[in-house]
């Protein structure tokens, strides 16, 4: 597998507080990579470093490098980076004043797509890819917030893939959802990895096991272990990992 993202001694701070310590590992192309670890271990911050969202937070700072296809994201224009690396948040974030259609179209419009046929096509294809079309085909002019939580999350996925990113970051995308909606999103992620490099942060160990090709275990901002998912869960090399995946702390 080719490498999509490479981290080199990545450290991150919020003000004086260091939250990530010297992370170095590689994320393969066209696969799902999960990041697991107890609350406050820096999973989310890690994700936000990849698309430079961490830089936008007040008092935030990073050192080290994040290489996307071998080029440091901080040497690239942040808008380009974010177009190449999409993100889905923990809670669904449809723009509350926009319709389903306009939510998906919003990213396309930012890229300067304004012709009606192109927008229609982009929106429809994104909705189909996100597995939402069948559920919204009655009326795409309904507000995005009129959908259920799971549908809203798939709407956000549709919005993210409409601008054709190469990487999709997912920050605990199912933690606010019920099991049925979770199953749909998980099925979707498995579909999406054919085309996208997916990095998913989750506190749900079973989910990481089901979805991820590789899993990284973080503890207190440090990378403890990173391996193929079955290896990490069945034969962890570190005692800390073993205790965590066995549910002895968390």
């Amino acid at each position: 597998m080719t490498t999509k993202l490479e981290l080199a001694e990545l450290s991150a701070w919020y003000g004086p507080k260091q939250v990530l310590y010297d992370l170095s590992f590689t994320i393969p192309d066209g696969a799902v990579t999960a990041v697991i670890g107890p609350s406050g271990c820096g999973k989310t911050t890690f994700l936000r470093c990849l698309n430079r969202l961490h830089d936008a937070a007040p008092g935030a700072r990073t050192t080290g490098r994040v290489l996307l296809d071998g080029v440091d994201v901080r040497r690239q224009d942040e808008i380009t980076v974010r177009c190449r690396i999409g993100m889905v948040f923990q809670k669904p974030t449809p723009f509350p004043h926009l319709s389903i259609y306009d939510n998906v179209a919003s990213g396309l419009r930012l890229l300067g797509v304004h012709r009606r046929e192109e927008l229609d096509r982009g929106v429809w294809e994104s909705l189909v890819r996100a597995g939402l079309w069948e559920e919204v085909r009655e009326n795409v002019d309904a507000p995005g917030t009129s959908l259920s939580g799971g549908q809203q999350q798939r709407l956000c996925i549709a919005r993210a893939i409409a601008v054709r990113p190469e990487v999709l970051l997912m920050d605990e995308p199912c933690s606010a959802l019920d099991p049925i909606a979770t199953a749909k999103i998980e099925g979707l992620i498995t579909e999406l990895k054919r085309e996208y490099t997916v990095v998913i942060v989750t506190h749900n160990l079973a989910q990481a096991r089901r979805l991820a090709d590789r899993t990284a275990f973080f503890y207190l901002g440090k990378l403890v272990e990173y391996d193929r998912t079955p290896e990490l869960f069945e034969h962890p090399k570190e005692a800390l990992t073993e205790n965590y995946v066995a549910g002895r702390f968390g």
Partner: protein
Amino acid sequence: MGPRTRPRALTATAPEPELSVPPFRSKPRFEQRLRLLRALGTGFHAASLTAAAGVVAVLGAIALLLAVRSQEAFSRFGPRFLSGTLWDPVHGVYGALPAIVGTALTSLLALALAVPVALGVAIFLSEFAPRWLREPVAIAVDLSAAIPSVVLGFWAFLVVGPIMGHTVEPTLAAFTGGTGPFAGTPTGYDVLTASVVLAIMIVPTIAAISRASLSAVPRVQREAALTLGATGWEATRTAVLGPARLGIAGAVLLGLGRAAGETMVVAMTIGNIYQVPTSLFSPGQSIASEIIGHLESALPGEQSGLFALGLLLLAITILINVGARALIWNFSSTTPARRGPVGRRTAALRALEERSTGSPPAAASAGAGGTGELGVSTVRRGAARPGAARRWKHRTMVAVAGLATILALVPLVAIVGTAFVQGGGAVIHPGFYTRELPAACNPTGGSRCPLGGIGPAIQGTILLLAIAAAVAIPVGLLAGIYLAEYGRNRLGRVLSFFTEVMAGIPSVLIGVFVFLLLIATDPTVTYSALSGGFALSILVIPIVTRVTEDALRAVPVHEREAAAALGYPKHRITLRVVVRSARTGIVVGILLALARAGGETAALVYTAFGSPFFLQGLDQPVASLPVLIYKYGFVSQYANWSADAWGATLILLVILLLLSLATRLAARAPSTDQGNA
């Protein structure tokens, strides 16, 4: 004080930790005590409901009294009262059109000038400004809102008017060829100047409420837009302005309501000629400025016409305020789903579906390996390149918003600066604070005018505020307690809504109401300190009610539940736990409300009236700083009175700004210590 009284409260209703002497061993005594508590609770509930209903009843009383007293004008002229252009007390002909047009023109033009600046300020402070700059600038904007309108008007009369008349308006006339709205001779005291100064007045209000709406949009919404590749400005436009739009619309309407009801600023800048303005350079008159300028000398018939004008103004401002409050209250709710036939977009997407039957894109792209034409085809992968234009647009918007913020702060600096330069000479004399006004005098030849003082005005302002506080604080507190603690029902919501509307009533109408209620009914009764204090209290009560309600609602439910679990009856929970917990917010709110009353003019001109002398009795006219500025700075113009007015301006400005600053800092300090307490 808290730690000492709290255990005493506990012993009344809950057992002591050491259970040697249970407080209610005898059952009859316990039940007697319970009956007493129940009676107290009922009484408290009734008292607070009375207060809350009383606030709203005043609104009804104002409308009723104005309607009754304007009957004569309406019945004599009918609809012609609205369309008439003449105001002729000699022949008894009254038409409202010039005042209506003047009000509409100045307030709408002010809005057009103020909204772009205010939105720039709000967006800059909420979205673009560096963190360290946000708080100080926000406080400075708040302070601009604390400038009394009489001070703004006085400054505009002496500074803005000449600038407009000599520089701005001739330039505009030259550019436009002096046609259309720019026809006529620029004088500097006209519709345009009044609009500009009104705009200066409402920018801080609109900016502060809009900023609150913008800041209420969750941070993650902005980040969602950023992750789609939006620039900072695009994220603001896509993710923030949309959800905040109703709140902003409400802020704009509130600004319009304030502009339409403003008295002093317009009276001192519009030129005071009762005519339908034919251009922006025409002097005119607004409803409020016509009332404040003519009520004193009006004949009975003319009075009725003025009250009819007042009723119109009341109706206009209530409509605007109801609209604004409805928008602000609902701005969290989402728009309902559109029903009806399938929209164009839904139809277009279904057409795409039909064309692709048999090969939906998901299945097709799986076969193609996700590399080429299939999948989301509108955007080619990696094609996303931010145009330099988009970045420049972001930078331009940041610069524009920053400039708007600077522009919005100019009046504060200019007014404080002018007040120090013009009033500094007067206030350094100790006698300035104790003496009465001097005889009117303009210096001629080598003679110098005697310099007087503002002693009576200082005395009067303190007295008026004391009366207002004595009435308004208990009533406002009770009403606020009702709305927050008992009013979680339809009645409570209605009362709460109209309390907000009441807070937006033009102060000149409150002055007219008290004038009608106390003074105009009985020829033996004159303007008095009591009626002035009463007018100020009517002005202040809705504000105290609202801040109390807000502060109490912010107290977490678990504090109430913890006390309820100890067996506290509701009125005791309210008074001993909730009110105490919210006391910082309430005290700050009361001080800000009194600060507003301290700068109030329009409500005092026909109630306390003003006086050159020290207090001669509570039933006699009394001086105050704002009315002194209006009467001796604007109405009568003599060199040494003007100097006194500037001195009074400086004193009033410094006191009110310091008070606002101190209360705002006090309000912020504990909230950073205790989180959301």
